[in-house]
């Protein structure tokens, strides 16, 4: 009996140190696939390794043996004794394995639900498996269905729509205010990991230019070099406020760096162009009253977290819809798998018919020889179509019964009726 098995670990079941050991080397996937090919118990295979998950998907006749060999492959890859990681593994069989790969591809099993990278990673892992000729009928079809499910989830639900990181949320807001970020100028005030991340996102979204200010000018120069920005001194701050459109503030200052009167006095010179403060410093860098000024928008870290919180909730809600889509597709795939059991019988039915056609044609060969080539062809077509018409009902009957428990008795009956076993 052919079964599909999925074994692996993800960000939930295994600590990062363990996942690292298994996915550290880029050639791990290739090696894993090579190991799988050598094993007689595995008829088809697929190996996925990303920073958040390592898993194998196999089609096998002998489930227990396949499971054991996959675990030993993983242990060899990561150089970890089997006993140390078996408790971190999840094992899915049959429909559960199908559901699992569909959920992974549509990013429902990701650390950040809805993140888009995983689909690309699965696609390249599948390309690798196909290149090593270890994927077969079932895995091929399953992967294509997985891509299809991912597409459906993306277009039919909003699971990957709203921003779920601080810097993305900030960029989204900036776009809602300025429409496009080209020709906009950013002031990076102070530096920190999160501020730099936000700056990087803004730049990759087309921000025109950037200036960096810091209490110590040397540090400003240092940061500015990273972003090909222009360093300015802290004393120029007020002058810069007249120029820039977006301020990313993250200084370690105890007091507010940007005060109400500072911003207010520059508005007229700015001709009321909108000004957007992204304040990710704790304690805050921008006085909260600044938000009351016309055309000035201040978002501090809590506001941004609030947005993310809301977006997360929205994604979770959408994930419910997505799970329904996955379930639908699992049922469809299950149906298709069942029809596979009928395939050998159908093939031998067709072969038998073809055999009969051939031998009967041979018997009447002498009479047929008198006909013109066109007439001969007509007769051949006629015989074949008679044979096909006779078989068409039994074949579609068998296909219909493919997902019934009584299938085997129907297959038996068909084999006996057409005496297919004798050859």
């Amino acid at each position: 009996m052919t079964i599909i098995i999925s074994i692996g670990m993800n960000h939930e079941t295994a600590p990062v140190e363990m996942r690292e050991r298994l996915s550290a080397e880029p050639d791990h996937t290739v090696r894993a696939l090579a190991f799988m090919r050598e094993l007689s118990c595995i008829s088809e295979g697929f190996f996925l390794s990303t920073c958040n998950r390592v898993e194998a998907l196999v089609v096998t006749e002998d489930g227990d043996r396949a499971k054991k060999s996959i675990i030993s492959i993983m242990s060899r890859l990561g150089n970890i004794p089997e006993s140390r990681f078996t408790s971190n593994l999840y094992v899915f069989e049959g429909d559960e394995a199908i559901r699992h790969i569909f959920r992974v591809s549509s990013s429902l099993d990701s650390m950040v639900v809805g993140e888009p990278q995983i689909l690309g990673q699965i696609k390249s892992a599948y390309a690798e498996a196909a290149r090593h000729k270890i994927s077969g009928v079932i895995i091929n079809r399953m992967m294509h269905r997985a891509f299809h499910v991912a597409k459906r989830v993306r277009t039919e639900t909003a699971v990957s729509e709203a921003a779920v990181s601080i810097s993305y949320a900030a960029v989204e807001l900036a776009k809602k205010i300025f429409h496009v970020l080209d020709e906009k100028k950013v002031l990076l005030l102070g530096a920190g990991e999160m501020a730099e991340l936000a700056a990087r996102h803004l730049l990759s979204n087309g921000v025109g230019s950037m200036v960096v200010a810091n209490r110590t000018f040397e540090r400003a120069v240092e940061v500015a070099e990273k972003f090909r920005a222009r360093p300015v001194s802290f004393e120029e701050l007020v002058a810069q406020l007249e120029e820039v459109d977006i301020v990313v503030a993250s200084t370690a200052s105890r007091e507010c760096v940007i005060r109400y009167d500072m911003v207010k006095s520059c508005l007229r010179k700015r001709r009321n162009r909108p000004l957007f403060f992204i304040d990710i410093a704790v304690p805050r860098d921008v006085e909260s009253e600044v938000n009351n000024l016309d055309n000035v928008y201040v978002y501090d870290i809590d506001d941004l977290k609030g947005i993310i919180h809301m977006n997360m909730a929205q994604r979770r809600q959408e994930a419910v819809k997505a799970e329904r889509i996955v379930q639908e597709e699992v049922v469809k795939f299950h149906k298709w798998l069942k029809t596979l059991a009928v395939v050998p019988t159908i093939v031998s039915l067709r072969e038998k018919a073809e055999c009969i056609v051939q031998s009967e044609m041979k018997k009447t060969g002498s009479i047929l020889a008198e006909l013109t080539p066109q007439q001969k062809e007509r007769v051949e077509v006629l015989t074949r179509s008679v044979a096909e018409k006779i078989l068409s009902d039994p074949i579609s009957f068998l296909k219909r019964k493919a997902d019934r428990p009584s299938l085997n008795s129907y297959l038996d009956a068909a084999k006996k009726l057409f005496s297919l076993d004798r050859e």
Partner: protein
Amino acid sequence: MFWFYMALALELLATGGFIVYLIKQENRIFRYAYRILVAGFICLTIMFGCRYYALGAPPVLGLKSALSFFSWSMIGAYLVLQVKFKLRVLGSFIAPFSAFLLLISSTLHGLTGPVGPKFKSLWLACHIGTAFMGNGLFAITFLVAIMYLILEHSIKKKKLGSFYNRLPSLATLDAINHYTLMYGFVFLTFGMITGSIYAQLSVGTYWQWDPKEIWSFITWLCYAALIHQRLTVGWRGRRAALMSIFCFVILIFTFLGASFWLGGYHSFDNLGVRKGF
């Protein structure tokens, strides 16, 4: 009349479509609603064309036809903007408004019978055409200002509700506000100039302190002030939006109020709508 009711039905249908689009955000629905809106616009155009031909004068002499012409010019302005800005959600605001005007128009009785020879003037046609195009554009300025205030409020108060996702960016809304304001002002100015030329030709004086003339001038001054503030001081965003809403209220007052309550030769009564209203 057939074309009028046809247009009314289509506009109402388009309104429904645009509202569903606003909620569901599906492009397919927008495409249908947009096509229906265009079809309604064509019906209205045919209606006005036929009436112009039959009357021999611009068919915008009563309140009924004035309202439907207002609706027509608004949709016309929107269709032009849609090509330029591709701003789908604007339709969800325009369609209900113009359908509403048409609906009111349908309950009124129109002008019947022949019109006096003094109305058969090309200057009058120019006056009405440009003035209404200005009104249509200002109506869009007004609607965009409302959209701006809704979005600005949700960003300022950090309550990113359902409107936040559906409206375009603040910068886009402000740009459309600016654009429609400028063109609207040009049309309004032309409307007033051609109006006074027509007055000179038909009654012999450019300006006769008629209430509607005075109020139109006040409207013009308000819009001129807004444009002045935008161009010199750089007024934009919230304040400009509020001001353009205020200006539009004055405009509506001029359009309806000055005609109804203040009398004068511009009033719809004196144009012969009395019968049956």
